[in-house]
């Protein structure tokens, strides 16, 4: 991993830590360890899937897994992170709600970490707050900072939601997808970006919010 990515990762961890301090209600023990563990698990799965889609055999090229900059599959990483978290939390769904605001704030930190990586800029624009790459005259949207601000607002919003099973977690997933979806057109890409996965996050997040209370009732019925 390159050092600039490492600094961005530290920023993400710092923001998650801040989220845990700000919104500490009902958190499980060692929340930051769980979040970091889930993030690493998600990165591993996302990188593995990206390698296979690029035609790189993970068995014959195992060290390629470390070249995170070579690409991480967004959807696989998100699913991997959620599964890793739930596994670590012994499938206690309520833990997802408790940590959701800190996770979203951590994602905001990851995007804000573009400042260390020199990777904030997106499509060209003449708006007054845009700036140019070093040596270039083309000013561009600081799209990663837009995403960071959007995710910070999302984290705050999620923290204000009522404690119904999966309401916070589902809303967090939907809002993260929405923020990425809204900023994607301003992000330079060769492939159009994983727009389908962002849409899926919005839809699945909405479904989770809707199904959560029903699932809660069913679980309560089963336990009595």
């Amino acid at each position, binding site marked *: 991993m*390159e050092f600039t990515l490492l600094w961005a990762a530290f920023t993400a961890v710092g923001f998650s830590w801040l989220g845990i301090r700000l919104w500490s209600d009902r958190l499980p023990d060692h929340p930051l360890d769980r979040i970091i563990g889930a993030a690493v698990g998600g990165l591993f799965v996302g990188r593995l899937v990206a*390698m*296979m889609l*690029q*035609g*790189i*055999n*993970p*068995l*014959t*090229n195992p*060290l*390629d897994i470390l*070249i995170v*900059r*070579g*690409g991480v599959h967004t959807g696989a990483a998100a699913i991997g992170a959620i599964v890793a978290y739930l596994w670590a939390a012994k499938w206690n769904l309520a833990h997802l709600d408790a940590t959701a605001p800190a996770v979203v704030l951590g994602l905001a930190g990851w995007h804000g970490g573009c400042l260390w990586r020199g*990777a904030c*800029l*997106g*499509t*060209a624009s003449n708006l007054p707050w845009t700036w140019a*790459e070093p*040596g*270039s005259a*083309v000013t*561009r949207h600081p799209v990663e900072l837009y995403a960071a601000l959007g995710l910070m607002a999302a984290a705050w919003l999620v923290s204000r939601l009522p404690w119904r099973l999966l309401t916070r977690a589902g809303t967090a997933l939907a809002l993260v997808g929405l923020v990425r979806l809204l900023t994607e057109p301003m*992000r*330079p*890409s*060769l*492939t159009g970006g994983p727009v389908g996965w962002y849409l899926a996050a919005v839809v699945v997040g909405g479904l989770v919010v809707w199904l959560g209370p029903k699932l809660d009732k069913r679980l309560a019925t089963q336990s009595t």
Partner: protein
Amino acid sequence: MLKRSVVLVLILAACGGAAASGPDAPGDRPDLPVTTAAEFEALLADIDTPAVVNVWASWCLPCRSEAPLLNAAFEQYGDQIEFIGVNVTDNQTDAKAFLAEFGLEFDHYFDQNRQVPNFYGGIGIPITFFFAPNGELIKTHNGILDERTLALNVDELLKLGS
């Protein structure tokens, strides 16, 4: 548990091996043309579009990861930007096998002694140079390219060319 592991290994092997068995066998390819720094500079000076020059080697792990990105960029912008590969500190057989594995269809040159990247001041491997029309060096990216970096620099070149 053992059964699951075996199934996972088989799936990984199948997925990873799929791209390596294309119809374009390394032996079918002609040797890469050998170039020197002076010849390469003259080549770029004759090109009237912007150019992306990627320096790679078959033994370089990050080069494997960025090869699909370069292919995607070439397929999308190959009519507006010249894409050129420079294979360094390598041998013809391994270089051709790498090109066959990733199906890299743009032009590649062989530069055993790293004359080209040394001439333009690149460090390590991989390196990607971005040139204005007629060979003026605009930007050097040392290290692996990610999609955003490549897309953004391609966009810069397109704006330069328009």
